[in-house]
């Protein structure tokens, strides 16, 4: 089955990004396809490569990048939400791309299920 995922909260402040990641990982492990992870609202902060958590904490941004690299997951950051919050190509972590909100609607159309994680 094809899943679309919407992440509406930034990393660390809210558990949404963690739950979304664990869900995506479990889905991939079960043989499902993650059609796209779309980052909206403060969720765009999941894509900042300037993020530096303490060494004993999980690295949420790198975890997403690794998932993109290993499983070809399409990580899309909403351009309007990103510009509002200072996320631009210069500080975009690997595996992420900036695109329009149409990519979210398209994911809703093309995926079998769209699951929202947020506050």
């Amino acid at each position, binding site marked *: 089955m094809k899943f679309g995922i919407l992440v509406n909260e930034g990393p660390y402040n809210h558990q*949404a990004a963690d739950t979304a990641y664990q*869900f995506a990982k*479990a889905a991939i492990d079960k043989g499902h396809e993650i059609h796209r992870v779309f980052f909206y609202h403060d969720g765009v902060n999941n894509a900042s490569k300037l993020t530096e958590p303490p060494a004993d904490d999980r690295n949420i941004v790198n975890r997403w990048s690794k998932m993109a690299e290993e499983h070809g997951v399409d990580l899309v950051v909403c351009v309007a939400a990103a510009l509002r919050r200072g996320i631009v190509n210069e500080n975009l972590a690997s595996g992420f791309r900036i695109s329009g909100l149409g990519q979210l609607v398209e994911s809703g159309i093309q995926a079998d299920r769209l699951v929202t994680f947020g506050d």
Partner: protein
Amino acid sequence: MLHIVNKSPSERNALDSCLRMAKKGSTILLIEDAVYAVTKGSTAESKMKAAMAKDIHVYALWPDLEARGMQDTVIDGIKQVDYPGFVDLVADNKNVQSWL
């Protein structure tokens, strides 16, 4: 339909709104702070029991129960799932709504 709730029932009204809209035979999955709703003595205990009596299937994400130290106080009859079980619930229901 799968309803996902992630808010503590004593802080926000997401669970109450979900319960108002959940139809007979539908499924509710409680994740993150919403897992407190299915623990003994919580403000939502009687509501959750009433929902189950109405043929609504109630699940809780055990990694979130465990993270909060609430794994030993879960109300009888609540089904617990891990992340793969969460994926199955989404796949098995024709649509899904998150009560943010």
